[in-house]
């Protein structure tokens, strides 16, 4: 039995007087999935001190003689944010969002677990159970379980060839390939082939679920992307490759398919141990498409941006002092980015204690003064409307984690 039919018959049989016409069904589903969450993970530990640079702290330039960004107005200088922090100039595409107060940063944030292993730290950020490896599911999957309304396979999607930890778990989620291939017809769309494989996979203990989810998600994506192709054609210009391309595609898919509620994307290449550059160079080259992609995403979501929260996060920060090779090694605290129509932006949040060595974690790294889970928790509560009980399921612990400030 197809999942949707099953759910419809449940509703019909439950005594609720819900007319099961597709139109009404869509309307209720749309309501339930109205608030969107997009999470972008920068794998490899981005150097947050050169994303939102504390140029107002004299230690900053001192500890980073060749990689520090200049003060605002200087050649290669930052874009001033608040007279103390400045944004990396490669992120100039985000300036409008900052001026419109649609983007906020939470500095000195991160995981309470102090591991400097990329892989463990990413794992903890995706499971949202720092220090505990045995957690089976990801926090986005747990959010999915707590959300009201009907879930279809595309309610939560990840862009990429593999299913990330953050979306793994009992609730249905889908992944689609990056680039144009993700939404094109495939061989299973030929009825004869599709039917034959359907028979093969039907009832298979291990793979039937993946197979069915794939088919259903594919149908939904195809429908959403056909409209997408038209819009792109109307827009004229071809999309650039990489993140700006994928983020624009995601925006269009979301607008065309209101059932999509949560999206996860990951970008790699932030592990800048050597030669990371300052205003220009390796890090700048990674940041520019990220900034452009986020700006595209916000713009192309149109009115939907008002109902969307976008979080950008990375597993840990990098050393305050640059290393021997014009790079930075694994550190601790970092900066989280939050974008969205309802974000109280234009502000750098967080308990900032400065870069004096007695304020640093182990004398070398930015301290973590805001638990990343309290940031995510605030978004889940105030934006997605999860209640205390649900929040405790998503972010397990004795009590609810609360940030000391409200950014949304």
């Amino acid at each position, binding site marked *: 039995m197809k999942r949707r039919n099953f759910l419809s018959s449940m509703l019909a049989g439950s005594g609720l007087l819900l007319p099961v016409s597709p139109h009404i069904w869509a309307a209720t589903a749309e309501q339930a999935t109205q608030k969107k969450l997009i999470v972008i993970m920068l794998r490899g530990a981005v150097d947050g001190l050169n994303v939102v640079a504390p140029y107002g702290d004299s230690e900053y330039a001192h500890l980073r003689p060749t990689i520090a960004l200049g003060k605002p107005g200087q050649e290669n200088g930052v874009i001033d944010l608040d007279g103390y922090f400045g944004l990396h100039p490669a992120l100039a595409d985000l300036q409008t969002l900052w001026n419109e107060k649609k983007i906020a940063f939470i500095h000195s944030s991160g995981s309470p677990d102090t591991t400097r292993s990329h892989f463990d730290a990413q794992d903890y950020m995706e499971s949202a159970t720092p220090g505990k490896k045995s957690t089976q599911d990801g926090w986005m999957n747990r959010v999915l379980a707590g959300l009201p309304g009907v879930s279809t396979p595309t309610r939560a999607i990840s862009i990429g060839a593999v*299913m990330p930890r953050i979306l793994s778990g009992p609730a249905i989620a*889908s992944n689609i390939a990056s680039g144009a291939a993700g939404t094109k017809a495939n061989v299973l769309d030929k009825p004869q082939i599709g039917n034959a494989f359907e028979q093969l996979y039907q009832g298979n203990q291990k793979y039937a679920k993946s197979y069915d989810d794939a088919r259903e998600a594919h149908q939904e994506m195809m429908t959403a992307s056909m409209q997408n192709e038209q819009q792109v054609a109307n827009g004229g210009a071809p999309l650039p490759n990489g993140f700006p391309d994928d983020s624009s595609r995601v925006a269009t898919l979301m607008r065309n398919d209101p059932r999509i509620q949560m999206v996860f994307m990951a970008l790699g290449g932030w592990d800048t141990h050597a030669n990371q550059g300052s205003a220009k160079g390796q890090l700048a080259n990674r940041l520019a498409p990220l900034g452009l992609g986020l700006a595209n995403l916000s713009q192309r979501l149109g009115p939907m941006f008002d109902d969307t929260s976008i979080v950008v996060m990375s597993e840990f920060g990098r050393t305050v002092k640059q290393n021997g090779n014009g790079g930075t090694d694994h550190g601790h605290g970092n900066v989280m980015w939050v974008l969205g129509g309802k974000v109280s932006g234009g502000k750098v949040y967080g308990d900032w204690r400065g870069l004096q060595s007695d304020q640093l974690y182990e004398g070398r790294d930015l301290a973590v003064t805001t638990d990343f889970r309290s940031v995510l928790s605030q978004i889940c509560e105030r934006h997605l409307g999860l209640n205390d009980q649900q929040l405790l399921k998503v972010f397990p612990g004795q009590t609810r984690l609360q940030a000391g400030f409200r950014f949304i």
Partner: protein
Amino acid sequence: MNQIICFCISLSALFFFPAAVAGEATTEQEAMHVLNRLAYGPRPGDLERVMQMGTDRYIEQQLHPENLALPDSLQKKLSGLNYANQKAGDVLFEYRKILGQTKDESEQAQKERRELIGKIVEETSEARLWRAIESPRQLEEIMVDFWFNHFNVFIGKGIDRALIASYERDAIRPYVFGNFRDLLAATAKHPAMLFYLDNWLSTSADYQPGLKRFGNQGAKQKSNGLNENYARELMELHTLGVDGGYTQKDVTELARMLTGWTFDQKANRQGRDLQFVFDNSRHDQGTKQWLGKTIPPNGKAEGEFALTILAMHPATARHLSYKLAQYFVHDQPPSSLVEQLSNRYLSTNGNIRAVLQTLFASEEFRNADVIGAKYKTPYRFIISAMRASEAPDDNIRPLLGSMAQLGMPLFGSQTPDGYKYTEQAWLNPDALSRRINFATALATGRLPLNQQIESGEKMGKMQVEKQANNNDKRQFMPTVKSEALLTTLSPMISAKTRQVVENNPEALRAALILGSPDFMQH
């Protein structure tokens, strides 16, 4: 309703775990099991061969690949490779030479650059895939992949493009059954690793060389201080494991011990190979405190000492044993087996062949429950499909494209932890449809594996996308015959799958077999 569900589950259990139900594997199933774990699955005739010789003899033979001759056809293909057989220094010389001509921005010059890089990458991949598909020394190929992945380097990082063929050939392949300390040292000293994890740049804090020019993109690399990158991954990934009990201080101290481990940066003239060198002027001459030990200044010997300690550390024995047991037996390997392997490792001084011997002889490996219990990685899925269907592999581009599409580009793991070998990492909705897509294209002869249909730098990605999008209906090769395939794979294919295959026309049958649930696992 509940009864029906129960019935379906038990029925499918019967189909997919016939051995588990029967309690004991048949000789045929055992033979298939070793072909599926010590090899990338059977080629036609392999099953009978292994049944005839017995699984024990097959295992013994695979553990001593030097006694197995490579077929002439494979030898000939491999010896025809140019870059994959050259010394690292020579490949790097050409690579730098052509990349150095950046002033020439003409389309022709750019095309030449892309073509050279494409050629190097393609040959490096051919050297790997041709062996994986065709070599009778299958376990050796499996271990090459396993250890490469354990000591992963990324082909997309700078000069590593030019160095990976040598890395695999010189630092991995000769040691895959040998002593772990030797393998560890070979990787530690290979320029591909020194470059990838930045140790080539790491120096004592007071080293002042001024700016050094480095060929690649003419980038100025400043070396005047410590870089922790390699030291951390050496303990976290290569030896002790992340829970191996070391601290941040141990990372920094080990990095200090390894300062000066670099490669001969002037070796860019043809004829002079790119070699590991220990540069004492870059070495931190102070005393170090590492893993509870006081390390007096002793130059290069400090690093050698560290490798020895790390190689023979009980945490390393456990870490490696866990990975091997997970790879060969089960995603959640039984702790009894991990312990057994660990003991064997320590008692043989890190002898990899001995550990594998113990593994393959273990009850846990032979247990009927683990037959077919592993989900294939994209790499294994593709190689095993090529072997089972005995498709030509003259043009590997469609294979490289498919691996990339399935999320496992060859030599393309950007991070040093390499790829995972678990079901959780690879089973997802999108991947299943894509595997079926590949299986169908292969079975219906639509992958141009016998000929290159595009020239130049394109690495097959476009070709596979065309196939995926169903736009390219050209048939390049004969279709795969379902009857032969069923014979080759016989004990793997369930009654249910056979039934569905029989109910469909021949044109679809081979695709159904290669795209079946049965062929997704091994």
